[in-house]
């Protein structure tokens, strides 16, 4: 059982003491002049901190001990792919030639960077089975927006940008949010009893007013949309596009390729499938692969290779949707991902999917006696249970999640996807050894038994964490969003 320190760590502003310093700069070596008019200069920031380096190290070290992390144990968040973050990636990203390169340097000064970008695009092209990939988007949602903007432009170029994007009710919230940002209205598709997109429902919904279908493959239940090629045919027949949210790529990387399924545009999350660290919420990267039809609309610039083997940034894309971010995307996240791709190689990438799916199905097999499985369809790299068996004793998913913390585990994703009431969405990833999966299953089974025999213990959980059951209503009603003296 992982122990979490119970210390309450005061705010750094509360540790501040007049006169303390945490830094030193070399003395000013140029004459001091009245370089700036006084009217432009601010007074010293009264409430800013004065702390020593010791204070800072101690403070953040103590704070860190209040977190769980993947390094410490299983983090089974569904669709987040919390896999091991290899330390080699961190070392390579810190290579000074990469870290100190400046985004506006001319191409001839950064051939190492451009070569790296070209290589990662080539590798992703092969993984996706698609002719080109943009590396500019810096997160999955950013990639979604990029992809839908390309679809819009492609359709507008043929005369009609159309009005609607179809999105299943099981989709992640970023999908409709991104579609709305791109200027589309959303039509929600009801999932069928298998939890997948119903092909007849889809066929009826695809009119000449529909620009695209956005689906997650496999979906948020971990179920593969086996009819995907037929979906693509239906959409293409009406001149519409098939967008794939690649958050779940971990389940089929190296096993199958989105490009072969008729998918026109897919984003991947490098901070999921390709091991770049989650860092508490980023940074990420969301490269987007496109089919031939969409290539002209890629964000500008692209990285190109000349015949002599040198590389350059190509800004000459008249039909591009434009730039989706200043500079060149999250370059140093791309460095980490390419390091990982090379460490894995083609056999390693394939093994990721195989063992990710094996691990998830192992959990499914061990837990299905204790928890309700709302959808019977075979699932790949994640499995969704519900609290249906436990609600009879008035214990709910939230309580089960909190009780898991007492067993030393970060809970799985809860209450998502929305189509399952009381959803518990579990994705172990391929990194996890069998004994960790067993410890998790043992804990879940023990909790299921507690729900029967001592439900109040689960309802009042967690008992061993530094803080317990926060008053979230209070936080929203009377928002305190900063420290004030």
């Amino acid at each position, binding site marked *: 059982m992982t122990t979490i320190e119970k210390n309450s760590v005061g705010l750094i502003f509360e540790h501040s003491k007049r006169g303390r310093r945490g830094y030193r700069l070399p003395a000013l070596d140029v004459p001091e002049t009245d370089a700036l008019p006084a009217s432009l200069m601010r007074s010293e920031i009264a409430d800013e901190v004065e702390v020593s380096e010791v204070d800072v190290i101690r403070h953040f070290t103590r704070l860190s001990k209040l977190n769980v992390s993947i390094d410490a144990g299983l983090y089974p968040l569904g669709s987040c792919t919390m896999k091991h973050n290899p330390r080699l990636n961190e070392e390579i990203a810190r290579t000074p030639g990469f870290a100190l390169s400046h985004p506006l340097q001319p191409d001839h000064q950064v051939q190492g960077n451009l070569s790296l970008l070209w290589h990662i695009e080539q590798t992703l092209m092969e993984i996706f089975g698609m002719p080109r990939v943009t590396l500019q988007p810096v997160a999955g949602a950013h990639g979604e927006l990029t992809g839908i903007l390309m679809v819009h432009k492609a359709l507008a170029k043929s005369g009609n940008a159309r009005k609607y994007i179809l999105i299943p009710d099981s989709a992640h919230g970023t999908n409709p949010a991104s579609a709305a940002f791109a200027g589309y209205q959303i039509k929600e598709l009801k999932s069928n009893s298998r939890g997948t997109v119903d092909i007849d429902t889809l066929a009826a919904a695809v009119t000449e007013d529909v620009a695209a279908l956005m689906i997650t493959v496999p979906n948020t239940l971990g179920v593969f949309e086996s009819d995907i090629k037929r979906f693509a045919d239906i959409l293409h027949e009406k001149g519409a596009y098939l967008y794939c949210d690649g958050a779940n790529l971990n389940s089929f990387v190296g096993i199958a390729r989105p490009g072969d399924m008729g998918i026109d545009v897919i984003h991947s999350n490098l901070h999921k499938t390709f091991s770049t660290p989650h860092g508490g919420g980023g940074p990420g990267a969301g490269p987007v692969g496109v089919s031939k039809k969409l290539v002209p609309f890629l964000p500008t610039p692209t990285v190109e290779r000349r015949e002599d083997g040198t590389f350059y940034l190509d800004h000459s894309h008249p039909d591009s949707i434009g730039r989706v971010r200043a500079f060149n995307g999250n370059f140093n996240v791309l460095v980490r991902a390419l390091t990982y791709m090379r460490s894995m190689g083609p056999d390693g990438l394939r093994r990721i999917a195989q063992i990710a799916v094996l691990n998830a199905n192992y959990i499914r097999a061990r837990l299905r006696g204790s928890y309700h499985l709302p959808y019977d369809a075979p699932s790949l790299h994640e499995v969704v249970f519900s609290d249906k068996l436990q609600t009879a004793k008035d214990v709910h998913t939230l309580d089960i999640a909190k009780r898991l913390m007492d067993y030393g585990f970060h809970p799985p994703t809860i*209450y998502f996807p929305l189509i399952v009431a009381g959803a518990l969405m579990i994705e172990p990833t391929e990194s996890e050894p069998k004994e960790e999966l067993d410890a998790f299953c043992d804990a879940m089974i023990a909790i299921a038994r507690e729900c029967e025999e001592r439900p109040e213990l689960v309802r009042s959980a967690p008992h061993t964490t530094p803080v317990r059951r926060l008053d*979230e*209503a209070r*936080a*929203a*009603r009377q928002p305190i969003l900063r420290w004030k003296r």
Partner: protein
Amino acid sequence: MTPEDSRYAKSHEYVHPEAGDVAVIGITDYAQKELGDVVFVELPAVGTELELGDEFGSIESVKAVSELFSPVSGEVIEINEALNDKPELVNTDPYGDGWMMKMRLSIPEEVDELMTAEEYEEYVEKESGH
């Protein structure tokens, strides 16, 4: 429990007629229970003209947000400012201090089309019974 002197919409808003063609609108006890702790209520500006079924605002709990739909047509003549500081009044007293807005009805007959307290209670039983 459900006040007899009000009428109810399928989307769980109530209409409590007062003197003249004025009515008080809020959400029912069932609705507030389903929502959980209310943290924020977004209401229209005084003077807004609404038609039956128009979205007039939203109500938020910590983890969810629901649209509010006008059960009648008319003009918003007053809103409950107390909900700015104490949105929890919707939870503690939905038919009293947790009222949301007062409207001057433009088509008073619409009130008769809404469900009575008895009809609403049946409706809720069916909805939650599945």
